[in-house]
């Protein structure tokens, strides 16, 4: 799994950084910076729920938790 941001949608609301501070911080303009986008179903199991919560909370649906594609 992987955290993906559609940058054309993101308005820098910043909820994602509050809900998933382990992986997401904000730059000086309030836009998210993802530390590590990968979410291993086993190693990062405890982050999957807050990651999905962050994606669901994004007001413009810019953040997604996607299945890793072979060439992504």
């Amino acid at each position: 799994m992987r955290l993906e941001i559609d940058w054309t949608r993101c308005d820098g609301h910043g909820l994602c950084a509050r809900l998933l501070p382990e992986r997401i911080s904000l730059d000086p303009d309030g836009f998210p910076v993802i530390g590590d986008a990968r979410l291993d179903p086993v190693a990062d199991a405890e982050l999957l729920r807050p990651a999905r919560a962050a994606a669901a909370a994004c007001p413009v649906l810019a953040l997604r938790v996607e299945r890793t594609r072979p060439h992504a």
Partner: protein
Amino acid sequence: MSALAASGTAPGGTTGTVRAWGTARLLAGTGSRRRVDLARHRSVHAPLRSYDAAGLAEAAEAVRLLGRGGAAFPVAVKLRSVAPGPRAQVLVNGSEGEPASGKDRALLRLVPHLVLDGAVLVARALGTGRVTVAVSDAEAHASLDAALHERPDRGSFRLQRHDHGFVGGEVRALARAVSGGPALPPGRRVLPTVQGVDGDPTFASNAETFAQLALLAELGPAAYASVGCAEEPGTTLVTLLGDVPHAGVVEVPTGLPLRALLGEGTGPVLVGGYHGTWLADPSDLVLSRPALRAAGVSLGAAVLARLPHDTCALGEASAVAHWLASESAGQCGPCVFGLPALAAGLDDLARGGDAVACLRSRAAPLPGRGACAHPDGAARFVASALEVLAATGELEVHRRQGQCGRPLRYTLPVVAR
């Protein structure tokens, strides 16, 4: 069409010439910048051999052909990613939105049929008859338009002139634009090979890539690879500008030392253009995309520039940074806010400010945070400029004096065409 006969004007804003050093392949038949019409083209080049998709990919792989637009993606891989059939499409990207680059315009103005032959070659290999050629330069458009009128296979082609700017020439933005959509990179990762023009599988590449494919089909892999270096055989087009012995567009065999192109000057060198990398001393590098990549440098749009000593180097970098900021498509926050911040930071340094660390920290998080690679390229340009201008003492002079005493000569052109 009389303007075409006198196509001696330099491409774009750059002053200079168009010439081949050594083997003229792409530029064969152009003599002293003479446009090659169909009759002359047919006398210079053998008729096209037909390839199926697998055969063409195999030939491209044999000569390690890389895309000539900037990303240097392997052509064979891209060919194999497009599902062949009548739905497939071919997109020739002649946009060349980078003001410092003149190579694609030179090619399209002088040898339009070679590019069109390459497009037909790919279309036939993919079993389709749908080719779009997109171009922004007026003279290149006129040259292509005249060329299409000469060709019996013109029914396969759709020629579009656009003025979508730098980011609008990004291939996914262009694929959207020629499909009737906005000239903006899509926010989700869609590859043109899967979903390109009109949503169809599309082989899209830079104009020079198609000309190289036409040469490959004409010569065959062995003869094609008889010049140039082993890791990227053949010739390549480069735009040279600034303090160089011969400014302009050149076709050269790959593998040449960069100093053979840049001369003996000592000013800082920009490799790859406005998404490229500044180097204080490129003298141990050679002109080969794989070799440059191994050295952490991208050949990008194949622009090589050396700043002369009578211009303000920091001002040059700042002017380009402002241009890059102004060319943002305005879609993605990190680019919209980050690029003007980089440009303003360079201005501050020029006036004697001391914001180097701050500027580095603004550039560092930009890569990967946009729908396209514009913020990545801008960050690379600014971060490497900081490094080189610190090493040459330029930043220190500005910090002490609030200026360097040299005028900004705009060696690096930033005025939109």
